[in-house]
Structure formats: structure tokens, C-alpha cells
């Protein structure tokens, strides 16, 4: 057991899987010799060699297309897309190919690939280094979509994703790489070492896909969140004094509807929070699920706190990012209803 930040936990997961399975290969832009622009693959090429961990040309469709071909051969590729903002050139290979290969071939071919990609804002990343495109992937049948919020989950979920025989989009909130972030940008950054979830076991362990976790137990209202927004929701509960139950979804697809249902039936109120833009965002799906499963237990309309329906701006970072103030206001609103 050692204290690790999220980058170290991710690197550890890759190291564990490269060591455990000769078919695991890691590649992407700058991931080889240099070790990745976020250091997530540092030292891996030296340890496992250039045929296991290597640099790729700047072609996202090439990276994913190659991974699909490798998966068809029998490898277990873990490609990286440098920023989730740049995953779109690979969308055809992900949505039309990786996601459908098993279906269209009756399981004869499949794509056991895990696409790692840093996502999310709160870092002055502007329009093309801050996006949260998860809803573009939760809408695709055949994909699994995962987003951890802490180092322990990041390692366990990544190992589970790599071992999974279906294609997984593994979103890494880059704002959480070095420490938890609750949206209080005016305060100094805290490192992960002060957080209990930075206790990361050595070696192999998994966190199951499709299972949410309760980040904070509460009775008054359920907050459905994932990634950075888990930490924002936790601080909003603390600051408002509202006894919120914060559900960290961890997997968006498949979704742990049972945990969501149990929590909302207990609290009778629900707030959904994500960084992504609102219209047709994943919150729309979550609200539909809550409405379908918990309507007669609801005591207030479901609230959602999301990014605005604009591209992610630069100078207006903190007016855009759904911080503890906006989440707190939503908590008050559902409690007053």
C-alpha cells in the first residue's frame, strides 16, 4: 500500500496489466519515450520495450483504428487520446467499429480495447482542453463508459476496463490528476496524499464496472455526480449543511440504476451534476431514469447543475464551471420545494 495521486495510480494500473498480460499494449501520442504529456505512462516503455509501449502519429482515427485491428488479432490495446477534446476524429472508429464489431460478427471478432483520455475543465484549458464529451459515447450501444474520481478507483477501474472484453472509454478528469478539487479555485490546491482514497494497494485489484459508490451517505437529497463533480458535491453538502447523499456513478454505461433508485427512494429528492453542457447531456438520461423508477417517491422536481450550453470559455472559467455555489443553490432549491 502506498499513497498515490491519480496519475501514479493510473500508471500503476498500466504497469500491473503490462506485467500480467503479454497481449496488453499501450500507445498514443507522446506516450512512449516521453511518458505522456501528463506522465501517465512514464517509465513504461523502458520497462516493457518499444513493441509494448510506443509513440503514435498524430492521428486519432489511426490510433483507434489500429487498436481495433490489434484487438481483432487478439491483443488487448490500451490506446490514449491526448485530450478528450481530440477524440472526435476517432469517433467513426469508436462508434461504427469498436462498439459494433462484436454485434455485427456475432462475437467472432470483438474490440477488447480501453481508450484512456483526459477530460474535464477547471484548468483554464479553454475550448479544446476542457470538454466532457461523455454523452457522445453513452449514446453508443456496445461501449462502456467509465470516469473515476479518485486514485483508488482510477487504478481498480482501469484494471477492470483493460480486462473487460468490451470497448471501454476511460475518461480521466485531468483536474483530479494531482489532487481532489472541489471547485474552490481561490484556495490552495490540496494534494491527494491528504485524502483517504490515495491509499492505493500494490499489485492487482479491480473496482467493478457498472457499480456506483456512495461518496457520502445522507438522508435529505441524492446528488448524482461523477469525476470532479463528486468533490464539488461533497463540499456543497458540507457548506450548505444539507444532509446530501452523494452517489459517485463511476460507470456511466452500464449504469448502476439500482444504487440510484435506492438512494432517491430514501431521500425523495435528487440533484444531478456534471461539467458537460446541459442540452442532451448525460443528466438528461439520469433524470429520466430517476423519473421512471422513483416518481412516486419524489418530493421535488429533479434539478440539474451543468456546464452552460456554450463552448468551454477561457477567461470565464469559473463562471462556466459548476462550482460549489451553484450546486449548493440547487440543493437549497430542492429542499425548499
Amino acid at each position, binding site marked *: 500500500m502506498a499513497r498515490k495521486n491519480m496519475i501514479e495510480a493510473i500508471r500503476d494500473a498500466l504497469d500491473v496489466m503490462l506485467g500480467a498480460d503479454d497481449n496488453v499494449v499501450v500507445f498514443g501520442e507522446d506516450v512512449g519515450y516521453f511518458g505522456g504529456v501528463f506522465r501517465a505512462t512514464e517509465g513504461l516503455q523502458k520497462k516493457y520495450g518499444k513493441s509494448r509501449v510506443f509513440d503514435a502519429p498524430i492521428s486519432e482515427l489511426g490510433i483507434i483504428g489500429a487498436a481495433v485491428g490489434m484487438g481483432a488479432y487478439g491483443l488487448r490495446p490500451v490506446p490514449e487520446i491526448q485530450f478528450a477534446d481530440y477524440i472526435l476524429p476517432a469517433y467513426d472508429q469508436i462508434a461504427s467499429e469498436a462498439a459494433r464489431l462484436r454485434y455485427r460478427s456475432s462475437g467472432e471478432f470483438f474490440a477488447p480495447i480501453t481508450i484512456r483520455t483526459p477530460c474535464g475543465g477547471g484548468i483554464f484549458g479553454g475550448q479544446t482542453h476542457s470538454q466532457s464529451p461523455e454523452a457522445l459515447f453513452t449514446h453508443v450501444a456496445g461501449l462502456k463508459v467509465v470516469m473515476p474520481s479518485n486514485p483508488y478507483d482510477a487504478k481498480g477501474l482501469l484494471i477492470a476496463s483493460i480486462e473487460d472484453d*468490451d470497448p471501454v472509454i476511460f475518461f480521466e478528469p485531468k483536474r483530479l490528476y494531482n489532487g481532489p478539487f472541489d471547485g474552490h479555485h481561490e484556495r490552495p490546491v490540496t494534494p491527494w496524499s491528504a485524502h483517504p482514497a490515495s491509499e492505493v494497494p500494490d499489485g492487482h485489484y479491480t473496482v467493478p464496472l457498472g457499480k456506483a459508490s456512495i461518496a457520502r451517505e445522507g438522508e435529505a437529497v441524492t446528488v448524482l455526480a461523477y469525476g470532479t463533480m463528486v468533490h464539488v458535491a461533497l463540499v456543497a453538502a458540507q457548506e450548505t449543511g444539507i444532509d446530501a447523499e452523494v452517489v459517485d456513478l463511476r460507470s456511466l454505461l452500464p449504469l448502476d440504476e439500482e444504487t440510484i433508485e435506492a438512494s432517491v427512494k430514501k431521500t425523495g429528492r435528487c440533484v444531478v451534476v456534471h461539467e458537460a453542457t446541459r442540452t442532451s447531456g448525460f443528466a438528461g438520461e439520469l433524470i429520466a431514469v430517476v423519473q421512471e423508477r422513483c416518481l412516486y417517491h419524489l418530493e421535488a422536481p429533479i434539478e440539474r447543475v451543468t456546464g452552460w450550453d456554450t463552448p468551454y470559455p477561457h477567461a470565464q472559467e469559473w463562471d462556466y464551471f459548476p462550482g460549489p455555489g451553484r450546486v449548493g443553490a440547487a440543493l437549497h432549491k430542492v429542499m425548499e420545494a
Partner: protein
Amino acid sequence: MDPHRQLSLHVPEPSSRPGDQPDFSYLKLLPAGGARRPEQDCPPQDMHDLAFDLVRVLDDEHAAVGPWAMELDPSLLLRGLRAMEKTRIFDERMLMAQRQGKTSIYVQCRGEEAIACGQRLALGPHDMCFPTYRQQGLLIAQDFPLVDMICQIYSNARDKLGGRSLPFFYSERDHGFFSISGNLGTQFMQAVGWAMASAIKGDNRIASGWIGDGSTAESDFHAALVYASVYKPPVVMNVVNNQWAISSFQGIAGGQAANFACRGHGFNIPSLRVDGNDFLAVHAASKWAIDRARANLGPTLIEWVTYRAAAHSTSDDPGKYRPADEYAAWPLGDPIERLKQHLIALGQWSESRHQAMVEELGAEVKAAAKQAESFGTLGKGPAPSASEMFNHVYKEMPPHLRRQRQQGGV
């Protein structure tokens, strides 16, 4: 404004349209046997001429001439002839089946039979092809059961793909035939990835990627060339230039400005331009590229010059955009006829034996179609279970799909 300085947009036009005389003068054809055959390990930069030349073996007198004429066992040629004829008869039967409403759509590969059949017979049993929807010859050349192909086309109760896929989108892993996708060009990049995997594992299998002239305009074509050039994996990159992408002539894909073979040069990938209607040239060039890949000498790009003799698909009417008799004027002739005449010239074949083979294959295809029909046709007779719809989305069915299946009552 000075009219002489006005800009104008160049929109390429084919050499002839409906009602015009077919005109293939744009094709620079050199006599058979003229193109040189480089050494197996020839550096790509030393064979640039071959992307502008045309590798041809069969001459106008049906003799095999020049450096690409290999010592081939006549039994291989007879196998090739049989595969091509079977492919054509199969296509004709399935076209008829579509007209009879037994399936929703079909595509023939008429005129292009030599390319898939010729390359398949040069590949090893464990190599993997990444075909488009117009390489049915890859299966037929290895005597793949026609009944299985037709059951898939009919989406019937015996369709291995459970009725989930469009007709002719076969998937036959054990026969080196990768699952076909409707999204053009995607498999060209995947072939390169598969070949990289073979190299990563120190295997000796190679990949064969396939793309049409029109789809070379897709980004995947460029990505595949970049990756093939960077990692030098064992892949044969086949561009089947049949002159047409539905209604667009190959100039709209950029083929008028530069041929497709020479695109390999910018990536330092050895590139050949080959007569796609010459079975001997197809086999020889394929063998050259396959041997090169297997010797770890990297990828080869091959442009197969051919002509799409039939409509694009059963949903297409080529009479609306090209001369009706254009194929009759195609200077590279018909692949079946040319190989047949060569075998006759060799004393290995005759018109009457050919006629007997056509009849035998016709009966075989008809019997296979009848047998497949007994397992149902599209919307008629035994059909795949509706619950098949929910299978194979994931390895294990997740709870939400389980609920939807119950909700759907299947």
C-alpha cells in the same frame, strides 16, 4: 473585374456520359510483359516507375509474357478460373434472388473476380483479409460453403450473424475474412493494426487490406498509409480501382490528377499498378507483396486497374451516369475470358470443358440457393429469433438490455 483573372472551380468529368461513345484513352496501357519485376527486397525509392507502369502478364495472344510470368501449376490456374466463374454465377443468382424479393439488396463484383480470387490463392490459410463488400471472391476461392453465404444474404434462421447485418456483410474469422462494415475505409486502417499486432507478437501472419478507388478519399486511407509507413507492418494494401464509386468516376476521388498507386511514394511504401483483369498478374503481384511482407520487408500498396462491370448495387442504375456499353469497350477485357483463353492456349482447357464447368457450377449454386431458401428468406419462412437483436451487443448482457429484451417481449 477582369474576366481573365476570375477564379474558377475545377470539377472533373468522366470521359463519357450516357449516349456518348465510351472513351478510355485516359488509361495509359503498355504492352503485356513490359513492366519490370524488382527484387523482393528492392527499396521503395528504386521502384517508383512501377506505380506508373502497369504490370501485365497475359498478352493479346493469351500468352504469359515478361518478368511477372511465373512458373504456375496449371491446376492453380484452373482453380482460379473455377473460383472466378463460380463467383460470377453466384452473383448472378443473388441478383436474381434480390429481384425476387428474397433479400433486400445485393452487390455484384462482375469484372473484378480476378483480384480477390487471385490474391486469396496467393495468401496463406492464417493470413487475415480486411475486405470491402466487393471481395466475395475471397471466400469463394477457398471453397467456402455457398449455403452459409446465402443464408446470411437471406437473413434466415441459419444466418450465422443472427439477421443483425445487411446482406453480404459476412464475417468468417476462421477463413481469414474480417467482419465487413458499412462504413467505408475503416477496415483499411484496421488491417494495418492487425499487421502491427502480428509483428508485435513475432508471428508470421500477414494482413491484406482492401479499399475501393472512391474510398481512398476517406481519412482512414491516409491514416493507414501513415501507420504502414511508420511501423512497416506486414500488410498488403489493395486499392481496387474499378473507375466508379456509385455514380462518381474515379476523377472525383482524385484519380484524374494522379493515379492511386503513386500515393504510396510520399510514404516510401513500395507501390505497384497492376492489370486487375489479368489473373496471372494479380497472382504474381500479390505473391510478390505477400512474400515481401512475410520477409519482414514491410507493406506494399497495389492499385488494381479494373472496371465495375455491373451496377454499384441492386439499388443503382448505371444507365443514368455512364454509357450503357462502356464495359464492352474496357481495354483490359474480361478476367474470366482472358484466363480461359490462356488455358486453352496452353492446351489445358477447352470451350466445351468450360461450358461443362459453367453448367456444373450453375447447378451447384442453384442447389445451394435452394437449400438456403429452405431455411427462409428475408421476411418469409424461418427467421432469426427476435431475441437475437439483443445478443452480442456486449459479451455479457447488461441489466438495461435484459430489461429492454423483456419489455420487447422477446
